């Protein structure tokens, strides 16, 4: 399946927005996968948003979902 990855803040410096052809079932699976291909994520605090909803606990991922990878917020 194919998912869309968008990234923000300092994470956007090493993960570009991209389509990813990948087989994962859930956001936890995706995290494991992302940390393998982008080792800079390991040990970094980050959150995912699935189709513009912040992921609070493990969620199922479907084909064509959009996943945002977000470092800690620093607005204001």
């Amino acid at each position, binding site marked *: 399946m194919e998912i869309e990855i*968008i990234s*923000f*803040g*300092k994470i956007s410096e090493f993960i570009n927005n991209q389509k990813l052809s990948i087989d994962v079932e859930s956001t936890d699976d995706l995290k494991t996968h992302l940390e393998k291909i982008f080792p800079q994520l390991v040990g970094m605090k980050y959150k995912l*948003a699935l189709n*513009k*909803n*912040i992921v609070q606990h493990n969620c199922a991922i479907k084909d064509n979902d959009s996943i*945002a990878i*977000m*470092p*800690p*917020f*620093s*607005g*204001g």
Partner: protein
Amino acid sequence: MSEKKIKNIFVNGPVSPEFIANSIGNHNTKTDIGGHSIFLGQVRNDEIDGKIVSAIAYTAFEDLALTKMHEIREEIFAKYPLSCMHIHHSLGVIGAGEICLFVFTSSKHRKPAIEACNELVERIKSELPIWGKEIFADETHQWKENI
């Protein structure tokens, strides 16, 4: 959640004092208001490892930020008897000394406006997907972290 329209909070560039004055002046027909509380965030020229911050470049996950801000807005309106609430956050490069956040609450008696304003500032900083990149005079940068 109510059916109210999601409001934009983002402005490109700094929030100007004239914009703030205009927003204040717009309340002079709301004669049931007794107190306004305003918080303004201003970009500081912090020194970090010997280098001076000259500006902060703000980016946001705008869709998510506006949805989240809408939720926060509804919760704060439900919690405090407010007459008005206005929130504006800058995007783009904001120089040191310029204003990047404008939170403005109004109520009949002063306490709800003051408490709501404080709570909004805390929630905006911790819950909105907005990122500040601190730009140094030598054009290097580091990503801001709210503590």
